C-alpha cells in the first residue's frame, strides 16, 4: 500500500462519511457544512490525481462561494422548520440509490480497464500541467468557454431578477 493509496482512502472516507452526513442530518446548516467538508476532501482527491489547478479551483468555488451562497439561502428560507425533513418514501430512495451504486460499480468493474493504461503512473499527469490546460481551454474549447460566460451571465441576471421580484413582491 503506497502512501498515495493511504491518502486516497483517507480522503475518500472523509468524502463519503461527510456526504452521508449531508444527506442524513436533519439540520440544513449542518448539511451545508458537511457539504463543505466533503467538497474539500474531493479537492484533496483531485490533488491525489495531480490536478492541482482543479483542486484549488474546487476550494475557491466550493470552499468560499458555494457554501456561502447555500448558507445565505438556508438562512433565507429556514427550511428546516419541519421536524421531519424527509419524505415518507425514503426507503424507496434508499433502494434506488443502493441500486444505482451497485449498477455503477458493476459497470466500472466490468469495463475493460485495460483499455486505460493501468501502468501509467498517476504522477505523470502533471505533465499536462496548468499551461496545457489553459491552452486547451482557450483554443480547442473556445466556443464552450464563451458559452460558459453566457451561462454565467444568465445565472447572474436570472438570479437578480428573481431576487428583485421577491423584494417587490413584499
Amino acid at each position, binding site marked *: 500500500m503506497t502512501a498515495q493509496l493511504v491518502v486516497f482512502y483517507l480522503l475518500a472516507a472523509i468524502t463519503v462519511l461527510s456526504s452521508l452526513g449531508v444527506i442524513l442530518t*436533519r439540520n440544513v446548516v449542518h448539511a451545508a457544512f458537511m457539504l463543505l467538508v466533503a467538497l474539500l476532501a474531493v479537492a484533496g482527491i483531485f490533488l491525489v490525481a495531480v490536478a492541482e489547478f482543479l483542486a484549488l479551483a474546487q476550494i475557491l468555488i466550493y470552499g468560499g462561494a458555494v457554501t456561502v451562497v447555500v448558507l445565505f439561502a438556508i438562512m433565507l428560507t429556514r427550511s428546516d422548520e419541519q421536524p421531519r425533513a424527509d419524505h415518507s418514501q425514503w426507503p424507496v430512495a434508499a433502494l434506488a440509490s443502493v441500486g444505482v451504486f451497485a449498477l455503477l460499480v458493476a459497470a466500472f468493474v466490468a469495463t475493460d480497464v485495460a483499455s486505460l493504461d493501468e501502468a501509467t503512473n498517476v504522477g505523470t499527469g502533471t505533465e499536462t500541467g496548468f499551461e496545457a490546460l489553459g491552452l486547451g481551454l482557450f483554443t480547442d474549447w473556445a466556443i464552450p468557454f464563451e458559452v460558459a460566460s453566457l451561462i454565467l451571465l444568465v445565472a447572474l441576471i436570472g438570479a437578480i431578477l428573481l431576487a428583485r421580484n421577491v423584494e417587490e413582491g413584499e
Partner: protein
Amino acid sequence: MVNPANLADNQASSQPGTVDMMVNMGPQHPATHGVFRMELRVDGEQILDLVPHVGYLHRGSEKLCEHELYSQIITLFDRFDYISNFNNELVIVAAVEKLMGVEAPPRAELIRMIMCEFNRIASHMLFYGTFAIDMGAITPVLYNFRDREKIQALFESVSGARMMHNYFRVGGIKEDVGDDFVARALALCDDLERGIDETDRLLTVNEIFVERTVGIGVISGEDALDWGLSGPVLRASGVPYDVRVDEPYSHYDEMDFGVPVGSAGDCWDRFYLRILEARESISIIRQAIALMEPGDTMAQIRRIARPPAGEVYAHCENPRGDLGVYIVSDGGERPYRLKVRPPSFCNLQALRDLTVGHYIADVVVILGTLDIVLGEVDR
C-alpha cells in the same frame, strides 16, 4: 434532544413574505451612551420600527428633591445631566433666586457664566468624542478628553471638584475664583480652540464622515417644535431658539455671540453646529472675563434658603437644550414639588421618527447626535 435550530424565533411574524428580526440594543451597549435601551425591528439591516425604553437610570431624584433642603438639592442637580454640571446648578439656583427675588452679585454671575460656557465646551467635546466612537473613529475621543481633562483641572481649581461641583449657591457662588484664574482660563481658551480645530479637521470634512451623516435623521423645524426638541437638535433644524438669546439670563444680554443655526436638520448639521457653538462659547468666555471686576460673590441672604410660597419656572440653555425647572414652594425649606424639564428626555422622544427607514448603523449615529444623557432623561 431539542435542536435549538428548530425553536422558532418567536418574534418572526407569521407572514411568509416578511423578514423581520427583533434586535435589542442596550441597556448595556457601547453606543447607547449609558443605559438606554431600544428594541429594533429590522429587515436585514433596515429599521422598520424602534421602541425606546428608558428608566434604567430612574433614580427618583425629583421625589428626592422634595425631601431635601435647597442647598442639598444643588448636589442632586449636579447629577442630573452629569456632563454639564455647572449648567444644571445654574438652573436650580436661578429658579430659587427668581422665587426669592434675590440677585447674585455681578461678579458671581460672570463667574457662573464662564463656568457654564466652559462646561458647555466640555460637554460638546464629550459629544464629539463619543459620536466619533459611535462612527468607528477611535482617536477623536482621546483628543477631546485630553482637552476636557484641562477643563476639568480648571474646574477643580475653581470649585474643588472635577465633576460634581456644588459650587453655585442661591445668591452667588461658594467662593471667589483664585488669582490665577483669569490667566489659566484664557490659556485654556486657546488650547480648546486648537482642540476644536483638530476635531473639525479630523471629522467634519472627512468624506466618510460626511457620507455617514449628511441626510441622516432629518427632522424638520415644525416637527422638531412639535416634539418639543430644544438645543442644538432644534437649531439644526433651522429654528433659532436659544434661551440665552430669547430670554437672557445672567449676563448673556451683554455678550455678543452668534447662534449657529442649521438648515438641513440632519446629523451633520447637528454635529457641526456643536463645533461652532463651542467656538462661540470660547468667545463668550473671553468677553465675560473682560467684564469681570472685583467684588462680592455672594448676596446677603439666609444661609438656609427659605423661599416664599409660590411657583416658578426657570430655564437656561444647557448644552443639550432648554433645561428648565418648575418649583412649587409652600414656603418651607424644601420644595413642595420640583419638576425638571429635561432636554434630553424631550429630544429622545423624536428618536423613533428620526430612525425608521434608516440602517442599524444610522440609529447609532442619530442617537449620538441627539446627545442624550441618561441621568437627565430618567432622573
